[in-house]
């Protein structure tokens, strides 16, 4: 059977190579110095979706992302790698959303899409590291969820079989469609961009981008496959009280800027006693555990 797959993806600041100017004085992220990237585990999720699409011909992969209009880059990136299209959920009303408000807005968008079999997202985003949005969406939609997935093994007769990472190893579980799957970073890497897809979709854009580009406007409008959806709060019938800051019970009290610096050097001799001492010290100060 063909599947309708929604991939949840987020554009995040690249926090993996953080320099000393990564945080501003007020403790917020200095987005100007951190490149915006496709959240790494969302790429693992996209790969699972594209694999399912290959196994189930006729399937459709839609990338759904919430963010400013430039988050259309994420949808394009998905299309370059094999997704069929996507939607950017963008509204000032969503600004300042915590995980509860984010999952509310995204679940409203999923309802608006309506026809879906599997929603796949990364386990967590590298800017917040909460791992809450996927599970909350499942709860709001009232459907099952499988977290920490490493491999969506099969989808047969409305039942999905998933190998998931647990603390002591892996386990294989089954659940009924439709459902939410969150994918762990230990899952296979996403495939590269495809040469034909890049050439086909390079001008794909959301309406606000199209409006700003007179030269390409007619070209894009003639080709429906180049249109990326751009939805706002009213498109998805969202209750504004549950959106953005208003809908976010999480309040950030303060942010502490922790900088690791090497203060001292210790020389360890190459013998069992010294090494054991080092290991005990590292356990004691929670460097390893």
């Amino acid at each position, binding site marked *: 059977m063909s599947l309708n797959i929604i991939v949840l993806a987020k554009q995040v600041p690249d926090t993996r190579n953080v320099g000393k100017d990564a945080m501003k004085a007020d403790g917020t992220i200095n987005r100007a110095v951190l490149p915006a990237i496709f959240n790494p585990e969302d790429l693992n999720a996209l790969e699972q979706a594209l694999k399912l699409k290959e196994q189930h011909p006729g399937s459709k992969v839609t990338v759904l992302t919430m963010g400013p209009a430039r988050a259309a880059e994420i949808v394009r990136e998905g299309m370059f790698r094999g997704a069929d299209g996507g939607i950017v959920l963008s509204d000032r009303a969503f600004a300042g959303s915590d995980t509860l408000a984010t999952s509310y807005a995204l679940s409203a968008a999923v309802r608006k899409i309506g026809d879906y079999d599997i929603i796949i997202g990364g386990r967590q985003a590298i800017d917040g590291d909460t791992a809450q949005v996927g599970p909350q969406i499942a709860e709001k939609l009232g459907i099952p969820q499988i977290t920490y997935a490493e491999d969506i093994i099969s989808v047969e007769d409305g039942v999905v079989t998933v190998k998931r990472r647990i603390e002591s190893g892996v386990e294989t579980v089954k659940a009924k469609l439709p459902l939410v799957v969150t994918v762990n970073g230990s899952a296979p890497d996403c*495939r*590269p*961009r*495809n*040469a*034909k*897809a*890049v*050439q*086909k979709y*390079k001008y794909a854009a959301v309406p606000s981008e199209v409006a700003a580009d007179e030269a390409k406007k007619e*070209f894009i409008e003639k*080709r429906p*496959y180049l249109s990326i959806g751009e939805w706002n709060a009213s498109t998805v019938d969202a209750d504004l009280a549950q959106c953005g800051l208003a809908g976010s019970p999480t309040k950030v009290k303060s942010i502490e800027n922790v900088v690791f610096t090497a203060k001292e050097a210790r020389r360890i001799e190459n013998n069992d006693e010294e090494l054991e001492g080092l290991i005990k010290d590292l356990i004691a100060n929670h460097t390893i555990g």
Partner: protein
Amino acid sequence: MANFYNDNEALKHYLSHPLMKKIVELKERNFADADKYDYAPQDFDDAVDSYDRVLEIVGDICANVIAENAEEVDHTGPQVVNNRVKYAPATERNLEACRKAGLMGMSMPRRLGGLNFPITPYIMAADMVSRADAGFENLWGLQDCAETIYEFASEEQKQKYIPRVCQGETMSMDLTEPDAGSDLQSVMLKATKKEDGSYVLNGVKRFITNGDSDIHLVLARSEEGSKDGRGLSMFIYDKRNGGVNVRRIENKMGIKGSPTCELVYKDAPAELVGSTRLGLIKYVMALMNGARLGIAAQSVGISEAAYREALQYAKERQQFGKPIINFPAVAEILSLMKAKLDASRALLYACSRFVDIYKIYDDIAKERPLTVEEKKEQKYYSRLADAFTPLAKGMTSEYCNQNTYDCIQIHGGSGFMKDYACERLYRDARITSIYEGTTQLQVVAAIRHVTTGTYLNKIREFEAQELKPEFEAVKNTLVFMTQQYADAVQAVMGVDDSKYHDFMARRLVEMAGHIIMGYLLLDDAQRNEEFNKSLVVYVKYGEAEVARHASFIGNFRPEQIEDYLYTNA
């Protein structure tokens, strides 16, 4: 994220070469595919933007998949299991990445599933793949055998095989045999015509790169009783039909990830390509020219890797209280490595542009008669491609060997250990000046263009070009070198002895090479000051080399050749 395209300014420089506009417009037939295929370009800028984006994908895969796997592939290598080749697992991952990215059949037309890229951006991809892993370049780069099917096979064969190559099936060219290496006229593999008109192949092939490929191009003797090249024809063997087994793979010094096979053909069904008897004299010559350009790209890629490894080590390694790059003796090696690398790449892309134009004209000529003007251009570029291909293959592969040697030298004792990539590069480089025709055979192909003046005419064209005034001094050196070259050619050709001509041929070809590469770098420096240093260093080097050859030739009495020849052997 590391990217072999984005970190290499030279590739973008050549992608924006002025001649690219002509190449792209011809290749795209003035953008006739624009409304037929959703991935076809609308105009020149759109096409170049597409090449740029696709090369970025190649750069990503090269840096993050293929280069990362190179060491593992070198250690694991392929195996023969039940007469079939089993690639190293990491090789499979490389191939899978290239297939998923749609990087197979890049130069094939869209109607057959390809990207319709000109040769030049395809060669850029080959340049990067080789930098990542020269052995893998062989497997990936054999896709250019599809060119031969496209040029010479029937429409039915094109429809049958080329889309499969574009989907990621691999190819091989089964030419050499135990007794037919450089001398392909001695090929013995027997092609027997059956009553229904089809053929079967019987015999043995040796040293076949990727010999267990999906689609083979095979050179075989179809004319019973014939002895020379005129009895040889070209065939396609499809692995799906069976009949060819891999007896063994060679245990090689380098490019270990690329299986080099001995093949046994036992009544293997095969399809004739084109006409009988043209196998060697027409089709293999075309195939080899494409392959030689591929080896030039492989050589440039390895040179690039070697230079980068050496540069990084020289900056990091401290001796006598400072990084070794600060010692003039080390700096000189590095500067010369870079100059040879840049000169090699300049020659590679000059050659690929010539190949592009004449091949596209050949293709257009199948659709409609060429105009008089177009025919003239086709002839002009075809001749240049013919002259530059052996020159590029010969010079770049020798420089690639020199650069990997110097890369180890920069690493000192550590370079002799197995701990650094330089030792693999050194081993991988060694084959480049041997296969697809040794350097000595490239000279045989190139010397014609010394005697008929193709090189000198091109040099005179370079000479006539307008220059920024600050480059006059360099140009004067090149003009002087040209005079020495012209004198040397006259001196050698003035002696009526073909052995003597053969003896001096390599010196003359190299002299032409130095001057041509000097002018190409001079041209690059007009557009991009990044090339200034390499221009100066290379011309200094070339000047000394040309003088060395001129001196050897000038001081040589033709009868002294007897001191060198083994006449009684």
